[in-house]
């Protein structure tokens, strides 16, 4: 208790004195005291040298969060989360570097091999010291120069708060308000870090931000916050996550992603999520409670979400589009695979506010083992939204008699000129197709992988090229042990 008191005192002191010493003050302690309180938030904010307005924003969110209740409507069940028994800030851990790949868990290497990840990246992902082999710094520098040339800002969130406060202030919370929902509010209060992207008017981002992200990603912590702003007429493609399995000790992940597309801008946001799903008996695994929302703020803007969800024990995630600008377009392409005891409740919301807006939803759910896989989506057409068009297709594939698949679409139309179509099917993997493949010499698992990949084709095609290949393999790996 005295230790906690001390830390709190230190924070108080720092909070009062931070302007005196500037923003670079270093605090000795690497961890916030256990539990969640206003002091924890002050600690995080001080640790990150945040300006006062950022701290106020966090505190406001925290106070709202205290009054909120955990959502219970999703078709997932998990033991109650003790929010006071967790650390909300710990500096990126320096894992002991391994000398070579020989020291890495062979199981992990096998998965990398199956995914076809290049050797240098394998080393990086596994935490092998790569400096000698692979000059990541120079690559990053090259990228940075290239991005800077066209004026793209791409930096850690905490850096953006310091370097570009006017942009952050303008857009942060403008899509997902700080008190949006239980987990988003928690994130607003304690978010650790994440990415900030700003694409200036008329700029087409010269590279997939994924490339950079992938080799430069640090442990951003369990409360990631991402904000992407595409100014007028710009374009950006962003890839979050990684096909490689990620072992992560944090059980609860509550991330927030906000996208803003101004006039004629386009944002393509792709996610591959492969966090630890728990073991075959359903023990352990990540709770992934994410709020992702894009705002097509300007006319003719476009936001496209593509997700491949194979990891996490419990997923609660609805990447949405607010189609505010006339003629704007929202897309959602999703593959959600659940095996063993995984639970997925995912989908999207397409809120049509502007004229001539259109949206397209293609969701493919694959349930195996004893898992539960739910698509939950909303298509809403407001009264003034003329000539709206929506097409929704959500198909579920069941592998094995003990899994379950659910489809819960909400369709609300308040304007007669809207044309909304929704279709969904649920069926098991076709025995004829399996038989056909196996009869031609494919082992059962490969046959299943082939069929499932065909089932997911519409979505896989939406992924950036380099990831599409890996994602296909990931689909196969996720279903290992589901047949036979």
């Amino acid at each position, binding site marked *: 208790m005295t230790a906690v008191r001390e830390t709190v005192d230190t924070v108080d002191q720092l909070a009062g004195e931070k302007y005196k010493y500037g923003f670079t003050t270093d605090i000795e302690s690497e961890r916030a005291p256990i539990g969640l309180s206003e002091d924890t938030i002050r600690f995080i904010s001080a640790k990150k040298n945040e300006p006062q307005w950022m701290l106020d924003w966090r505190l406001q969110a925290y106070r709202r969060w205290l009054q909120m209740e955990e959502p219970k409507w999703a078709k997932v069940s998990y033991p109650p989360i003790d929010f006071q028994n967790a650390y909300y800030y710990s500096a990126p851990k320096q894992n002991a570097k391994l000398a070579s790949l020989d020291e890495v868990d062979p199981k992990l290497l096998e998965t990398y091999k199956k995914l076809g990840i290049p050797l240098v990246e394998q080393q990086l992902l596994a935490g092998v010291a790569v400096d000698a082999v692979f000059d990541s710094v120079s690559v990053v520098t090259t990228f940075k120069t290239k991005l800077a040339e066209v004026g793209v800002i791409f930096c850690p969130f905490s850096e953006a708060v310091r370097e570009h406060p006017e942009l952050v202030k303008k857009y942060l919370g403008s899509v997902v308000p700080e008190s949006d929902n239980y987990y988003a509010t928690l994130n607003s209060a304690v978010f650790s870090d994440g990415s900030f992207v700003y694409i200036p008017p008329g700029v087409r981002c010269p590279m997939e931000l994924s490339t950079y992200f992938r080799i430069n990603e640090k442990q951003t912590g369990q409360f990631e916050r991402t904000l992407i702003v595409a100014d007028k007429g710009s374009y950006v493609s962003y890839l979050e996550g990684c096909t490689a399995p990620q072992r992560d000790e944090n059980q609860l992940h509550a991330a927030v992603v906000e996208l803003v597309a101004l006039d004629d801008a386009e944002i393509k946001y792709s996610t591959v999520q492969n966090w630890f799903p728990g073991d075959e008996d359903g023990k352990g695994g990540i709770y992934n409670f994410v709020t992702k929302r894009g705002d097509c703020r300007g006319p003719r803007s476009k936001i496209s979400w593509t997700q491949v969800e194979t990891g996490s024990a419990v997923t609660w995630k609805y990447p949405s589009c607010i189609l505010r600008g006339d003629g704007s377009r929202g897309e959602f392409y999703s593959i959600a695979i659940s095996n063993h005891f995984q639970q997925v409740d995912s989908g999207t919301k397409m809120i049509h506010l502007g004229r001539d807006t259109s949206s397209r939803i293609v969701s493919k759910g694959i349930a195996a083992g004893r898992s539960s896989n739910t698509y939950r989506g909303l298509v809403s057409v407001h009264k003034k939204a003329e000539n709206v068009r929506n097409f929704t297709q959500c198909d579920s594939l069941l592998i094995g008699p003990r899994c379950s698949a659910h489809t819960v679409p909400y369709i609300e139309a308040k304007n007669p000129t*809207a044309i909304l179509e929704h*279709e969904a099917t649920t069926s098991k993997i076709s025995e004829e197709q399996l038989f056909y493949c196996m009869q031609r010499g494919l082992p059962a698992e490969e046959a299943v992988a082939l069929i499932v990949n065909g089932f997911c084709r519409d979505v896989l095609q939406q992924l950036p090229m380099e990831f599409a290949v890996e994602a296909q393999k990931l689909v196969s790996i996720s279903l290992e042990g589901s047949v036979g």
Partner: protein
Amino acid sequence: MTDAATKFIETYERERNSLPAADLPWLDARRDEAMKSFAEAGLPHRRLEDWRYTDLRQLLSKASLAPAPAHEGVVLLPTTAFDAIDGHRLVFVNGRFRADLSNLGGLPSGVTLVPLAEALRAPWARPLLEAPQASGIVALNTAMMGDGLGLHVAAGVRLGKPLHILHFAADAGAFHVRNLIRLEEGAEATIFETHAGAAAASSFADHAADVSLAEGARLAIVKVQDEAPSAIHLATLTARLDARSHFAHFTMTLGAGLSRNQSFVTFAGEGAEAHVNGAVALRGKQHGDHFVVIDHAVPHCASATLFKTVLDDSSTGVFQGRVLVRPDAQKTDGRQMTNALLLSRDAAMNAKPELEIYADDVQCAHGSTIGELSREALFYLRSRGIDEETARQLLISAFLDAAFETVANEEAREALRGLAANWFRLGGGAA
């Protein structure tokens, strides 16, 4: 506790001893238990997922919920769409059975058709009433049920002529009707139901029906709800189907300011089939909600649901459907489709077709569309010299007809078409 709920509780306390078969101890206990659960839950409201588009608590707050008077005198009954079809006739006025207006002669032997008070004493009725209810609001009906009909058809008996039931609301006020239907093995029956009301009657009609079909039994119900615009109509159907039984239910909703039709069908035996379909045509400020849950609890059953909704003026349509396939209910075939046409700028449709599936060897599909009349189709017809009014009616009729097609009885199908035509005559669907 809202005023509306309190009113019901007060009425119950006052009238409990004069309710039908009040002397039966098991029934008395059942009613008390039901009233207690209603009092605890109150009227359903928007925060309940099943009621998210129809806030009964709020909508009933302004309704006149005093018990409807016993209208015993002369009453001018409306014609019904099924009048031309020969059959037995039962008439209920303000929720009370009127033997003097009914005609139950010539029922085949093995068919028991009695008012609720009598049915409640029959041994086959008790399990129907004691079965757990899928919808909480039925508790209100269980406690307050004032009349209704009991239909029992013995094994192998076929009710040759259809049963016409007319429910007429002559005055303002609330009434609670309960129908209990049990078809034994291989029995067959057809029921045509018409719900109508006097133009000025702001009635609250609370209907509940419990249907139980034994092995191989077949039951078809066609229901037309055409109550006054000031009326509120709440109906819950609960059906339990044994092996190889066949149940076909069709609802046509034209009337009532607010209507909510709930259907809960449970498969209890393999090889059974259920069809729950409907056509809805609303205008003015009408609000029509259709809620269908099909519970595939056993393997090898098939269900199909099709609802066609046409919304004019500032009406609101709701379709909420759920196909539930329980673990082990393999070889299930579940289909669900809902289409809506918005004919006016102010009309709105909410649809929530749900699939909840816990077995893998199944074929389940659902679809939903919402849109306006196809401009190309209209143009096509206009370019061939058909005036706009006729063209619109043609297209809307064709749209609704797809639902009527699911009704097996040809005469009933024609009757429904007649109702659709009448809807146009009254101004529905006009440009």
